[in-house]
């Protein structure tokens, strides 16, 4: 019997072969801003460990290359990713000369390509397994726990990104909580204002086009400009409205960032509320009216629950978008993970950029998976109930 190739597996095997044998695994630098020297897997790890890692990668790539059972592919991808995650920490310790606090070891292109290749394999397996929403959140939790465990165990302590973290541990959590507060707070404000506005637009046809057009135009203003433009009016409010300054409203800082994110969030919330309400079947509404329900009862008992999955989709768009946009708040002194990104760009210190970028991407990614799962659950529940 001739073995059959898996098409995606061919791609994965090819890029992982390149990454494992031709690309650098880690970069060593004498201090944080000088250009680095590349180290291959065998140079970056103790001899036996390096050979072991290569063996694991080759085995996993072979499993990906041929048509193999899904369970085997799942095991191969998890195994390869775990080995990579664990051993990049070992490389950090191995390459750092003892007692040297200036030397920096960071993952290099080969490591990232290998992570990409096996994440691709994992994503393919998970897609084919067609997991239930709860199971997907479960996978996310397990992955988060594994990463948390690696962080706590200290096995990554000698990697450059964590060295940047140790230098700024306090400000990292402060900026992180600012980032989350900005993203979630502006979302909450947008929901509080956007839902009634959407309902109003649904009921009053004359209002709909006007409101949606204005919100559409706000979306075209580049984020850095909108952040900047809000500095002046908020500065004025702080100076002239008694009590405003005490509430933390200031020209620069968190207030304009919050208002800008709120304005960007309104369109998806309002538009999806309108679309969701418009999609409520006429029969459902008629039946409710026939039963003698009042307008308010109809809204909360029938229309709103039926439109809920669509509205949630709008909220998902807003949350993911806000987590990304909140990085720009740093430009106007609004804090958030963007502080590290822009500091890093300014100092050409890429580890610092990563310290800001990695948590942002992780947050956005987790938010997308969790909300997607919630949307799917509410949508299927609805279908079961209406069936």
């Amino acid at each position, binding site marked *: 019997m001739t073995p059959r190739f898996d098409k995606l597996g061919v791609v994965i095997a090819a890029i992982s072969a390149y990454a494992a044998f031709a690309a650098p695994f880690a970069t060593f630098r004498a201090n944080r801003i000088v250009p680095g020297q590349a180290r291959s897997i065998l140079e970056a790890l103790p001899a036996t460990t390096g050979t072991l890692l290569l063996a694991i990668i080759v085995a996993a790539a072979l499993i990906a290359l041929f048509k193999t059972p899904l369970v085997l592919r799942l095991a191969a991808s998890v195994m390869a990713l775990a080995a990579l995650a664990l051993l990049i920490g070992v490389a950090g310790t191995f390459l750092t000369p003892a007692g040297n606090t200036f030397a920096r070891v960071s993952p290099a292109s080969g490591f990232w390509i290998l992570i990409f290749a096996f994440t691709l394999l994992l994503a393919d397996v998970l897609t084919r397994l067609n997991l239930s929403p709860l199971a997907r959140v479960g996978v996310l939790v397990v992955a988060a726990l594994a990463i948390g465990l690696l962080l706590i165990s200290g096995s990554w302590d000698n990697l450059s990104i964590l060295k940047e973290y140790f230098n700024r541990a306090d400000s990292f959590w402060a900026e992180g909580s600012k980032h989350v507060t900005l993203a979630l707070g502006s979302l909450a404000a947008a929901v509080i204002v956007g839902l009634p506005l959407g309902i109003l637009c649904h009921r009053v046809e004359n209002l709909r086009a006007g409101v949606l057009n204005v919100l559409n135009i706000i979306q*075209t203003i580049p984020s850095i*400009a909108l952040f900047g433009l809000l500095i*002046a009016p908020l500065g004025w409010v702080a100076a002239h409205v008694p009590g405003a300054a005490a509430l933390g409203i200031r020209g620069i800082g968190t207030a304009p960032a919050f208002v800008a994110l709120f304005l960007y969030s309104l369109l998806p919330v309002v538009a999806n509320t309108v679309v969701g309400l418009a999609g409520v079947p006429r029969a459902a509404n008629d039946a409710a009216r026939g039963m003698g329900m009042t307008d308010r009862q109809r809204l909360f008992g029938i229309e709103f629950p039926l439109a809920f999955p669509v509205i949630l989709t709008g909220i998902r768009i807003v949350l993911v978008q806000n987590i990304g*946009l909140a990085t*720009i708040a740093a430009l106007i002194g609004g804090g958030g993970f963007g502080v590290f990104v*822009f500091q890093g760009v300014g100092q050409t210190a890429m580890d610092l950029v990563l310290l800001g970028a990695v948590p*942002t*991407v992780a947050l956005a990614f987790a938010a997308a998976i969790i909300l997607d799962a919630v949307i799917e659950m509410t949508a299927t529940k609805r279908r079961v109930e209406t069936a």
Partner: protein
Amino acid sequence: MKAWLPSLLRLALVVLLVAFVTNPGWFEPLLKPLTENNAPVIYNQGSLLTLTLLHLRTVLIATVAATIVAVALAILVTRPAGAEFLPLSRSLVNIGQTFPPVAVLALAVPAVGFGEKPTLIALFLYGLLPIFENALTGLTTLPANVVEAARGAGMTGWQRLTKVELPLSAPIILGGIRLSVVISLATATIGSTVAAKTLGEVIIAGLLSNNLAFILQGGLIVAALAVLIYDGLSAIERYTARRMGREAE
């Protein structure tokens, strides 16, 4: 609303935009109240016209590249040979959208250096997603009877693709391009944080020197460009949709 009013407004916006980028001096009295301490009113470290053209060029290059790659990928995964990749490509598009543009931009710098290149990479990656998604929708929701008829008429796979499937999906693909261009126009301004020559330069100069007039002129030019291009592409989309007898989404 009268039917001619939107066209008139659009025309006025075009005239205003062209007048502003070619002769910003005319508008100085309007913006003057926004500055303090005799700060310059009009951006003075480069011509607004050049920056606008460079901004548009960056967006154009990125969008053309993204369109070619995204449509080619969508065609690949909708052929029988590439069908295996379809579910995976969908989840990848979903994951890709969670990457914030600033992060992509900053992470591209070590690989390609400062300037226009990281911006092009970020715009390209960001532009891919909406176009790919729409091309996929277009190619997978073709009316089955039309495709069958094309097969029955003895068309080869290539002929079906170029003469039936792509023309029929054109309006939906154009919709994706429109979304991608509008996102790119705004995202390109962030490129100036890594020293790309775009209109973001004007806005950032305004942020750094606390000059509201700079922020406003940079922001308004980008917003006007976005509104006009969005309108123009919507019109082309409606035109092709009418020709194809398909409703644009």
